[in-house]
């Protein structure tokens, strides 16, 4: 049959097979994007959790990775306790927001009682990475070392079929949620009076002059840590239904976040989103086409970017 169809098409027209092929290619390409969505969302939020403090307060704080861990575990526990297998979207969003508030609270407390006293970046890096051990110790005592899961939101949201690709709706939810959070953050930074204060103290501004202009540095820093903690906790909460909460995920979170900043640049929301897509899709493609490189590809990308643009794609050099 196919043979006859090709015969009646005028010469020079691409054969039917090609049209089918390009559709197939589109479908495959879309599958890469869809399958990358969870990782993209998670990278965006996590990296900005680290990025935000670095950009606004000029501080390196790895505490976010511990908060990410707590966010994942608490979401699992609270979700299982209150909702169990009865899933409701609004309740789940409420849980995520509550977990976000918890993350914010933890972040502020850790800053006020501990990180505030660390004077140099080296101290901050060493001290906060040691703090991660404390976080994982607490997790170990509270939840043990076995991974815990709460997959109802992921399983109950159903699937969509897009051009022959089966995509769990949760992927869209997760991406949408993180995108809304980032848009809200962008709105806050660029459209509100408080955002102006934040930008004034950021690496793009001048901290001393911001204070001369009446910006209360302590409040800005506290809110910065709160937002970072919130992002990290929600990232954990959003990803937990897909991959579970397991002891040790904080290390990976740390690496990916740091890597994204290297590629995307400090303080760039657009850079973080785009980098998340680059890394996420690269991982999906390598998983299928070159499995050997799946874990290495984010690092290969980061190294390549560093060679070409030492301050990241959107990055600027900051005097620190």
């Amino acid at each position, binding site marked *: 049959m196919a043979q006859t169809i090709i015969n009646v098409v005028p010469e020079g027209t691409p054969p039917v097979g090609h049209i089918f092929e390009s559709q197939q290619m589109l479908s495959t390409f879309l599958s890469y994007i869809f399958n990358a969505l969870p990782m993209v969302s998670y990278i965006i939020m996590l990296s900005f959790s680290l990025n935000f403090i670095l950009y606004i307060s000029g501080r390196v704080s790895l505490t976010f990775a511990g908060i990410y861990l707590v966010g994942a575990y608490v979401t699992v526990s609270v979700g299982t306790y209150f909702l169990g297998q009865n899933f409701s979207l609004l309740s789940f969003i409420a849980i995520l927001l509550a977990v976000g508030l918890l993350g914010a609270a933890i972040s502020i407390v850790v800053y006020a009682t501990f990180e505030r006293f660390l004077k140099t970046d080296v101290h901050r890096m060493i001290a906060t990475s040691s703090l991660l051990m404390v976080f994982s110790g607490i997790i170990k005592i509270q939840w043990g070392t076995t991974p815990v899961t709460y997959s109802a939101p992921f399983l109950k949201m159903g699937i969509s079929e897009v051009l022959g690709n089966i995509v769990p709706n949760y992927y869209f939810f997760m991406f949408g949620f993180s995108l809304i959070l980032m848009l809200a953050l962008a709105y806050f930074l660029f459209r509100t009076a408080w955002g102006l204060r934040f930008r004034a103290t950021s690496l793009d501004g001048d901290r001393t002059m911001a204070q001369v202009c009446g910006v209360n540095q302590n409040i800005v820093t506290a809110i910065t840590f709160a937002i970072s903690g919130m992002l990290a906790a929600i990232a954990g909460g959003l990803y937990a239904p897909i*991959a579970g909460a397991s002891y040790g995920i904080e290390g990976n979170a740390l690496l990916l976040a740091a890597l994204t900043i290297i590629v995307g640049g400090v303080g760039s929301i657009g850079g973080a989103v785009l980098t998340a897509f680059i890394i996420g899709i690269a991982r999906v493609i390598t998983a*299928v086409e070159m499995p050997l490189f*799946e874990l290495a590809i984010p690092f290969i990308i980061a190294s390549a970017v560093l060679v070409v643009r030492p301050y990241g794609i959107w990055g600027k050099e900051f005097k620190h």
Partner: protein
Amino acid sequence: MLVKRAGSFIVCLTVAVFMMGAMVAGAADQKAKIPTDPIKIGFVVPLSGVAATLSPNAGINAELAAEYINKYEGGILGRQVKPIIYDEKNAQTAVELFGKLTEDDKVEAILGCLSSSSGLAVAPKVEAQWKIPTLLLESTTMALFTKVIPNAKYVYRIGPDDVMQSIAHVTAVLKDKPDVKTIAIGAPDYEWGHDVVKRFQEIMGKFKPDVKFVYTFFHPFGEAGPNFAAYITNVMQNKPDVYVGYSWGSDGVAWHNQAEAMGLFKAVPLVFDVFSGTAKGEMAREGVLAETRAGNGTFPPYILGYPNSKFTPMIVEKTGVLPTYGMDIHMLTGLLYLKKAYEKAYDLTGQYPTFEMVAKTLDGLSVVGPDGISSMINHQSTAPGMAVGRLHKEKETWVMKDLILVPDYLRIVPPWMTVEQFIDTLDKVQK
């Protein structure tokens, strides 16, 4: 005179014979004294990390195994068993712990090592240096007794090896889906994952040469926050008759959730997810084939009164879940082997057994354990408890239905054959 002398000679002789008899008899009754203090047994089992996800309650279950021996079996040689339990963590730690147990804690036998890497690391040092009766629990790598310690004296293993495992898996797939033509197979990307996939493909090739492996993949092992969507999409796009998966632990849980959300279990006619019966039910899906080692403590049936009928309820009472992995059950099997070896060696020699005697006695020993009757052949327990079954939820518990047990001659390499020779004969044996 002569008679008189002869008479006294006979009397003397009689007295002498009696005395000698008495001495001999006395010797027979006069065995060495058994110490009354507890006998210390070391356990090196995963209490944290990835391996702990397979056997989340290994520490508690080790204590319970000792409690069982003390309560129902009267200890070992009448001595109470005192378990000393350490966290296996990784191969290097395992080696250090074995040294500590033998040299500092003065234990009289060691059980443990879930991970092949730990087993491979400790075995040569046990043989060469510590010379202490050692029962590895799992550490399933075939290389252990074929390459690393081919002339093992002190090291034994309870649990299946790769070959036993793979033969059981292939047999199960063929029994469930005799007309299988295409298979997709995936495993975690580390030595064991590659081994099992290779074995599975090799043995399937023997049994049914026309089966095609349409998609083979290895996903990152134990990565935090894994996302398997790309692999799942590819499995589904290849439309295999059967998917065979070896993901376990946190990978396994994530894999199952993601596969379920993307509809893999509906899209593929038969899914054999080897570890879906482990963990706390997070990986279980209705109708999926799963492996069970030691029958999760529910096999043989309790009504027959094997040790599991008392031991499994102890575990459930303490942990709230059935033993999830072979190791949990094998800790008791191991203690029963040790009890029998110690007691047999003592009975035969009358001395308190040395490590060497215990190790020698273990060879060929049979015990009635919580997973049935097994023997130590080739330093390896022949525990029949490895089976494949179909997961089914009854009320609130997952059970395995339609258990497929593989006969001994199909899964145990005879002592006179190499693994390769054995695999070579499999197709003929099966016919």
